[in-house]
């Protein structure tokens, strides 16, 4: 377990591995859809989620975090790439097998109310995965749903109530109970706490941590709130314009961000953390995110990077993994010296 996740350990297959995932959305212009371009929502993303661990995915809006999660559980069909779920090629499976794999990967969404059908009772909502996958029926299902509700801090009295009768935090607990119903191995948390009050956020985060401990879950945890990710994630992937620009052990990345974009992100955290204050001295944010349908040449970050030089506009940097630390970053400044970021 202590092995660095980004390094080939060779022993244990990760529960989920994603290789070179790409999703391009065609953009149609004109009456007949000609002169089309593409939006590169996700452009060559690779990562792995070791069993029982949490991989955090951060980046600003539109960086492709949510799309990445949806590609990984095949809610959206990737343009190309590979998804290995427990060693099985997810994109090659169909029908029954795909459904069986689906039951092992569930999702908790951002909008606690929106992700619950307002016309269904809690019993129907949480029981739906059981019904879909034919896990249990009748009294056994009622018992299982009650058990799930108790696991997430609700009770059997809530069985026949409707979503609107709950608070935001409780609604999110219902969403979590639904995700747990089929005993999944991986749960994708897409901004699962960002719509909640801070105090409720903490409760939900602790609930997720407890569930991870008790059930051995793995999480892909997506958030734009870096403090939340820092609390949850063992490993961190930083995304910018559909690409992972930095990846590594969460604590290490927070303590010593390598990529200029990560430095900018960390500098943007409000608070009194000394690490943040340091980051603030290093870099200043400027500019807007370029259009993903016309990404900049070379390094996609060069238009906003305070350290950009000629090579950055010409050549796209590769995500290079340092064998010593297992950390990876895609920046030309890091090419010469394998240790230490740009300064």
């Amino acid at each position, binding site marked *: 377990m202590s092995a660095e996740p980004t390094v080939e350990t060779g022993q244990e297959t990760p529960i989920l591995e994603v290789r070179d995932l790409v999703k391009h959305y065609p953009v149609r212009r004109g009456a007949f859809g000609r002169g089309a371009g593409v939006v590169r929502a996700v452009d060559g993303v690779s990562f792995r989620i070791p069993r029982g661990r949490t991989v955090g995915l951060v980046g600003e809006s539109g960086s492709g975090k949510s799309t990445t999660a949806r590609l990984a*559980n095949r809610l959206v069909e990737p343009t190309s790439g590979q998804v290995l779920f427990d060693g099985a090629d997810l994109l090659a499976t169909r029908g029954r097998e795909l459904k069986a794999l689906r039951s092992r990967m569930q999702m908790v969404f951002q909008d606690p109310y929106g992700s619950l059908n307002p016309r269904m009772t809690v019993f129907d909502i949480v029981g739906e995965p059981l019904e*879909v996958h034919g896990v249990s029926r009748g009294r056994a299902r009622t018992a299982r749903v009650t058990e799930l509700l108790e696991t997430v801090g609700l009770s059997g009295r809530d069985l026949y109530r409707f979503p609107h009768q709950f608070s935001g935090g409780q609604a999110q607990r219902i969403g979590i109970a*639904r995700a747990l119903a089929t005993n999944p191995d991986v749960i994708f948390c897409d901004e699962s706490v960002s719509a909640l009050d801070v105090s409720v956020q*903490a*409760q939900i985060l*602790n609930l997720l941590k*407890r569930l991870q401990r008790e059930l051995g879950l793995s999480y892909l945890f997506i958030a734009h709130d870096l403090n939340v990710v820092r609390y949850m994630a063992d490993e961190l992937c930083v995304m910018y314009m559909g690409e992972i620009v930095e990846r590594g052990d969460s604590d290490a990345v927070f303590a010593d961000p390598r990529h200029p974009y990560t430095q900018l992100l960390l500098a943007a955290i409000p608070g009194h953390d000394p690490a943040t204050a340091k980051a603030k001295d290093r870099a200043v944010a400027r500019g807007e995110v370029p259009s993903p349908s016309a990404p900049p040449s070379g390094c996609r970050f060069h238009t906003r990077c305070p350290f950009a030089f000629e090579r950055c506009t010409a050549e796209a940097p590769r995500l290079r993994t340092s064998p010593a630390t297992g950390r990876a970053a895609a920046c030309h400044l890091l090419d010469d010296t394998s240790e230490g970021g740009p300064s």
Partner: protein
Amino acid sequence: MSSDVSTGARHDGQASPEPPDRPAAAPPARRRSLAEWRAGFTRFLRTEPLGAVSLVLIALVVLVAVFAPLVAPHDPLLQNRTRITEGPSAQFLLGTDDLGRDVLSRLIYGARSSMLIAVLTTAISLVLGTVFGVVSGYLGRTRDLLIQRVMDTIQSVPPLVLLLFMAVVLTPSIHGTIIALVIVITPSFNRVARAETLRIKEEPYIEAARATGAGALRIMTRHVLPNMMAPLLTMASLLFAGVIIAESALSFLGIGTPPPTPSWGLMLSEGVRYVEMAPWMVIAPGVVLSLAVFAFNLLGDALRDFLDPRLHR
């Protein structure tokens, strides 16, 4: 944010697990057994008084229609040439028409064909239009294209012309009228259902259902359909009135319910010609028709509210 939070629900946000402002023991809303159906019906009567009133009215019309031979004082087809266009009297409570037939009896028998046509047409169009609309909207692509072009074709022809054509092809009869009206009305339901499907399709709970592994059929029936009941029911209660009027137009043109079989629409259109000398010939079917339409509109509204768990309770 450090310690365990197993008791978290107690502190969640605004509402405690048992909100004091509403009864904690909300009755189970699953539709499973006969007993639950009955409980649901009782609850409907309790929470929707206007709905209850409309149900009584509709039940009355249906009962009268079913037991027409027992209720009607006269033979609706019997002509009495000596007593034409007589005003209301003890013998003819609502007067007689231009052929000396009893208006009340014709009204009672007319309920049969009018209700049959209106209810069946609305129900069949509602089902067909909704199925096509949901399939079209949810599955999209070729199916959407095909279904919508067929609907476009139907809607591109003026309804009356289409009805005329259908009625001529199908020969005047009640089931011919129903088929013709269904064809004319289905596209309206289809459009509403499709538009609603396109809206609902983007709701997060649809994606959530897909993520749990639910298939298209399940999502369409369990998630999309229940969430578009409100506009569909409103549409149905509006079109119900339209159907009765359309049926009268067809009868007026002599291609709807074949005379002498009475129908409310037919009575209306016949009565218009005698409105100056025998106004009861128009007023009687007019009032009954309005009441029936009103009752169905009320029922539609009541059902819509009743089926929405976010309202009341």
